């Protein structure tokens, strides 16, 4: 499973990196970015889902 942020949709609402700082970070404009290649472990998947459920822009995608 992998997580990604669609930069066209993300508006830097900042929910992802405060909920799951191990998975998400931010760039110089404050937009969300995924750390590394976004591969999720069984431990991190729940955090990634929670971030997804809190992103007002629906910019976070979790894919097989």
């Amino acid at each position: 499973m992998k997580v990604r942020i669609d930069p066209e949709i993300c508006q830097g609402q900042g929910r992802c990196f405060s909920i799951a700082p191990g998975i998400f970070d931010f760039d110089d404009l404050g937009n969300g970015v995924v750390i590394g290649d976004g591969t999720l472990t069984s431990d991190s998947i729940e955090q990634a889902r929670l971030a997804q459920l809190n992103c007002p822009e629906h910019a976070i995608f979790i894919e097989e």
Partner: protein
Amino acid sequence: MTDNPLVQDFATDWDHSDPQWVADPYPIWDDLRQRCPVAHTDRYGGGWFPSTHAGVAAIAKDTKNFTSRNVVIGNGRPTELDLPAPIGVAPPITSDPPFHALARKLILPAFAPRPINALEPMIRELCSSLLDGLSGEDIVNAGTKYAQYIPPGVIRGMLGFPEGDIEYFLELVHIIMEGVDHPEEERIIEFEPVEKYFVAQMEDHIDNPRDDLTSYLLKAELDGQKLAMEHVFGTMVLILVAGIDTTWSAIGAAIWHLAQNPDDLARLVAEPDLMPVAIEEFLRFYAPVTMARLVKHDMEYQGCPMKQDDWILLGFPAANRDPVAFKDADTFIIDRAENRHVAFGLGIHRCAGSNLARLEMRVALEEFIKRYPRFELADPPAVTWAPGQIRGPRNLPIRILR
């Protein structure tokens, strides 16, 4: 404003300055959502009010059919004298694409998490010294003596204006807040002292550049060109207008809530780690900001016959109470885990200051409950709410329980 006749039916004649709406808008919005999800009014020259999450989101993201040329509803239709899209009077909030992205990119780095997080000690010291000034009193006005002073104090620090000037700076902020929607000729005269002081500060920053927002804006470039002083001044005014009443309202509403919900207050005192999650719920439940758009051309939209230059009042606070988007939408749940609230807007105009607003809210509340772990409303009917597009408690007397 209050000279307008009282509203009988908000579906066909809504008015966001009607006393019933100002006092408690939530039942009105619940009713509209069921009966008429895009309400109409002939007031203000004609306008529409979407009250569902889906309706608000669609319009906020649709910059083809709606313009941000004017985001504050005035009396009557906008005139051709209002600065045209895409730049507008106060970029980026009044800008449309494609210029909007340029103006926004200019300020975003200054409001990104890294520079904002560095302000935490300064904000904490400010809150703590405001509380020192109130110590020993049994009743403190958390609105006019605490929340009100935090955002301008913080912005003064960010701009790098002298700390000793704070009283004068607050006076200038007051002039801006009062005058911002006055006609341009009046505004230019009223803003003279503001401009004089700000220009003096800018000149000082040109001679002695330092690590603050003023120096940042003076260094910033748009299309390879440094910004004109007027542009820097305009941006500073926008930041003051957008950042002060909004954050004051958000901090005040949270204290108002805690004063009436001792269980929530006790939980926050006992579980400080809950604060960031609680802040998102404060923002959802008491979202202070409603923004306007103008319809670009005659069209049928969401089943409504919209006319060019009709107002749209974007009910972000109403969207946050939509039961389709939120479970138990009308219940405040301090540890709500799933919370896609839209208090900071949606789409390209998403609040540029949201990292700062969240930090100010967190530190202001942390310091307040550390000092006063138990408190209640001293005089519930005495609490007043600001009318208009920024809603929050103003007079907020709190009894400290010892």
